[in-house]
């Protein structure tokens, strides 16, 4: 089932991390050292801390984390969709297509939303207006961002492109007349109507069945090939990462703990959390008596542990890990980890017998 020659296919998919392709000197999205706090508690809840993330033109990056890790906060901050207050952008910069988002006046920001970055969310019903037809909502997005294309024909073309059958009639449907998978397709049609350079998809398939999930992932890949847009996909599912990502960033308790090209991260993780996460996933055909659980729970944003945030759950924790907050250090080409001991640890991801 696993011939070794298939590795080459993945190498082509991996775009270089730091030095980008010629002609695209600076990354499309460059989040630098971003820290966001919430609430008036003392100390306040730090949703994310010192997050750095880049997405290059045409690239697919996955941001992986569990609930409460800060992955959605990071996603929403890109178009400054988190209203402030309650959110406070404490520190950092977000560079999107040459603009610094955090310092941008609201009027200019509105021109970037849609045209440069658009979103797809987990619940398609949340991004669709229940009392208006699908067609009229897509038309509105076009009028706002691509006025020259704001025609019924373009709406039908978009709906056909995302695989909605008989788009001429379905354009007149209301969201409730569609299934969850069809609603998500409509939401994607609306998001790509404005020809964004970056599509941020926050758990776009979590609410869908597996066979429909496969369809939607396939669709996103196709659309990317067609429009050359970059995708930032937020997910908790490592299987999806393997399907779609060029590069992966793993976030834990508000911090990026590891970032690497996709195949390398799955084959050779360099952070104990990533390695544990990979092993915790039950895989088809990898029957074992027990699953590899990670003990304990994800810490809440109020009481994050001192030192390395993963140390209370880490099987390799040492006394130093309780005190020193580790920094992101290089662990290979385009590969960064927040574990100072990574090269001394047995972080073998998939046991050899799994490849039976």
């Amino acid at each position, binding site marked *: *089932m*696993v*011939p*070794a020659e*298939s*590795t080459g296919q*993945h190498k082509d998919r991996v775009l270089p991390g730091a030095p980008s392709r010629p002609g695209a000197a600076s990354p499309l999205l460059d989040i630098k050292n971003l820290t966001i706090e919430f609430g008036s508690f003392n100390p306040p809840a730090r949703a994310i801390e010192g997050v750095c993330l880049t997405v290059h033109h045409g690239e697919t990056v996955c941001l992986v984390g*569990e*609930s409460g890790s800060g992955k959605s906060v990071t996603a929403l901050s890109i178009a400054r969709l988190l209203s402030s207050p309650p959110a406070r952008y404490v520190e950092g910069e977000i560079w999107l297509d040459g603009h610094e988002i955090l310092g941008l006046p609201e009027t200019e920001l509105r021109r970037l939303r849609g045209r440069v970055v658009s979103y797809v969310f987990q619940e398609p019903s949340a991004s669709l207006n229940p009392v208006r037809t699908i067609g009229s909502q897509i038309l509105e997005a076009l009028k706002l961002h691509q006025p020259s294309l704001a025609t019924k024909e373009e709406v039908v073309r978009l709906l056909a492109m995302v695989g909605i059958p008989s788009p001429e009639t379905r354009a007149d449907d209301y969201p409730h007349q569609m*299934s969850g*998978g*069809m609603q998500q397709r409509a939401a994607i049609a609306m998001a790509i109507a404005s020809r964004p350079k970056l599509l941020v998809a926050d758990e776009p398939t979590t609410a869908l*069945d*597996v*066979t*429909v*999930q*496969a*369809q939607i992932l*396939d669709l996103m890949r196709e659309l990317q090939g067609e429009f050359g847009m970059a995708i930032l996909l937020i997910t*908790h*599912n*490592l*299987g*999806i990462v*393997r*399907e779609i990502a060029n590069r992966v960033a793993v976030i834990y308790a508000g911090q990026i703990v590891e970032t690497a090209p*996709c*195949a390398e991260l*799955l*084959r050779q993780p360099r952070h104990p959390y990533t390695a*544990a*996460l*990979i092993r*915790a*996933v*039950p*895989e*088809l*055909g*990898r*029957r*074992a*008596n*027990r*699953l*590899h*659980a*990670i*003990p304990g*729970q*994800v810490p809440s944003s109020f009481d994050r542990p001192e030192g390395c945030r993963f140390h209370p*759950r880490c099987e390799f924790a040492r006394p130093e890990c309780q005190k020193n907050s580790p920094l992101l250090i290089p662990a290979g080409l385009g590969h960064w980890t927040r574990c100072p001991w990574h090269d001394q640890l047995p972080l073998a991801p*998939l046991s050899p017998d*799994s*490849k039976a």
Partner: protein
Amino acid sequence: MSLLEVRQLSVRFPVRRGLFGGVRAWLRAVDRVDLEIQTGETVGLVGESGCGKSTLGRAILRLIEPADGQIIWKDTDITTLSGRELRQWRRQAQIIFQDPINSLDPRQTVGDAIGEALDVHKLAPNRRERQDRIAALMESVGLDPSRASDYPHEFSGGQRQRIGIARALAVQPDLIVCDEPVSALDVSIQAQIVNLLLDLQRTRGIAYLFIAHDLALVEHISRRVLVMYLGRVVESADATELLHHPLHPYTQALISAVPVLDPDSRRKRIILGGEVPSPINPPPGCAFHPRCPWAEPKCKSIAPALREVKQGHKAACHLITADNSTPGNPTATNT
């Protein structure tokens, strides 16, 4: 003798015109399902949303009344039990749900939630014993017994699922129906709960009917697996057999749709068109034919029966040939 044997079980829901209108149609949520569970084994039940897997799980416990068929529990027909007898029988079969917060009363302490089960079945003769039993149950699911007076909202999702399990264990059941018990939990916590269920099974010999949409998870913990589509079982086999030699095109697509982590794995993907049709008005013939990549004319008119293709492996498909191959079976067609 099986612990549980379900014969030709059907559940139908009326579809009404408006709130008080007459019955317009019948939705066949579960259609003539056979199922057998032995003592201490895990049977997996997979399918997509709306396939009837949860309804089947509830109908087995008589939480939903079946329209037809029989439920035999250790040689006793429980399909017709009522009142006191039914309540007494329920001690032997319990259920845990996907979202533990919705199955716990927010105003009841965790100790009382677990103790309630003891009270209903009069399993604790006095206060002291009740407390001891609650503490022992909490400990057995990995919860700190000193937290018995805390309320559900003070626990995390994984801990709440442990409370649900403790509650089910309180009456020492022989069977627990696990209805998507880990789908609402994070991956790292999922593994904890699955391991807990496996440990409890080993020490107490409890049988599980494990209902989930995650085929990888079901394959991992079940001995036998049933695949449902639109209310019917379309394939059932030993877990390993099902994974390596799936015969029904739907099972094949379901397996290929599961994302795989190993970056070196190369699988043929079958991406199904369309979605699960409405069970109110299912397609004629084989219910899967509109999405089946290999459908033939007869699939559109004749519903295939679930038949034993080889020892312990049943499938409902017209396309299975005499040498047990189907167009999409990678092992048989050698692609």
